[in-house]
């Protein structure tokens, strides 16, 4: 069995870097021959996770970093996203009622829901005094 392929990128907490993050993940999916349909969804899930960190983890005007590490094996695509901002538990976010969401004119709050819809695992780990780590896993069809 071959070792999983690992790559890493670090960006600052600015939405202008979302395209850089998407390109990074897209390159990993291409290098590892991930089917386009799965690839597009993985890219979106990572975009949602990073956009969420940019919006919630750091106070305005504070520059912080976000590390995105991919680990790809024959059976799964794992992405670990780390930041040193505020603690945030995605599992505390309830599934939205879309009709209510539309009625209230709310524009935000769908990223976590989308991440859960796409990925097979969404795990959050808070490492005291160090950082937040969000782990996203998509199982890959083999054979």
């Amino acid at each position: 069995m071959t070792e999983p392929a690992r790559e890493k990128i670090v960006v600052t907490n600015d939405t202008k870097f979302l395209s850089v993050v998407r390109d990074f993940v897209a390159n990993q999916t291409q290098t590892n021959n991930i089917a386009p349909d799965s690839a597009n969804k993985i890219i979106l899930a990572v975009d949602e996770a990073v956009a969420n960190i940019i919006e919630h983890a750091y106070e305005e005007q504070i520059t912080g970093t976000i590390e995105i590490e991919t680990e790809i094996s024959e059976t799964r695509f794992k992405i670990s996203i780390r930041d040193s901002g505020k603690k945030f538990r995605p599992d505390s976010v309830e599934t939205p009622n879309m009709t209510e969401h539309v009625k209230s004119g709310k524009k935000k709050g769908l990223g976590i829901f989308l991440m859960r819809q796409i990925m097979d695992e969404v795990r959050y780990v808070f490492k005291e005094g160090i950082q937040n780590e969000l782990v996203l896993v998509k199982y890959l069809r083999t054979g």
Partner: protein
Amino acid sequence: MPDFAIETQQIKPGIRFVAVRGFLDAHTYEELDKTISECFDQGVHKLVVDLSRLDYISSAGAGVFIGNIGTAQDNDGNIILLNPSQNVREIFDLLGLTQIFTFAQDVDSAVRLLEK
């Protein structure tokens, strides 16, 4: 070529055509939100939004439509989405929005839906 662009055009009195091109994400959604708000401010609540050249949409982008369709409908209007690519359409599916939004394949059908 820029990563994101919006073009608007009045196609009939009270109906605005809004073409969105490129990548609609947490970095660019505010521009589209501003364009739609400006239409509403001018009393235009019937919008045909052309998504045929939209390469990518995230929840922040979809949120612009979710957050504005109620205002359009409350003012006797609507937001009709024109020709999204399969990738873009899939995000609406994943968010459970295909029951809420009306999709059209060409401008004439979109206008007919708005004039009903």
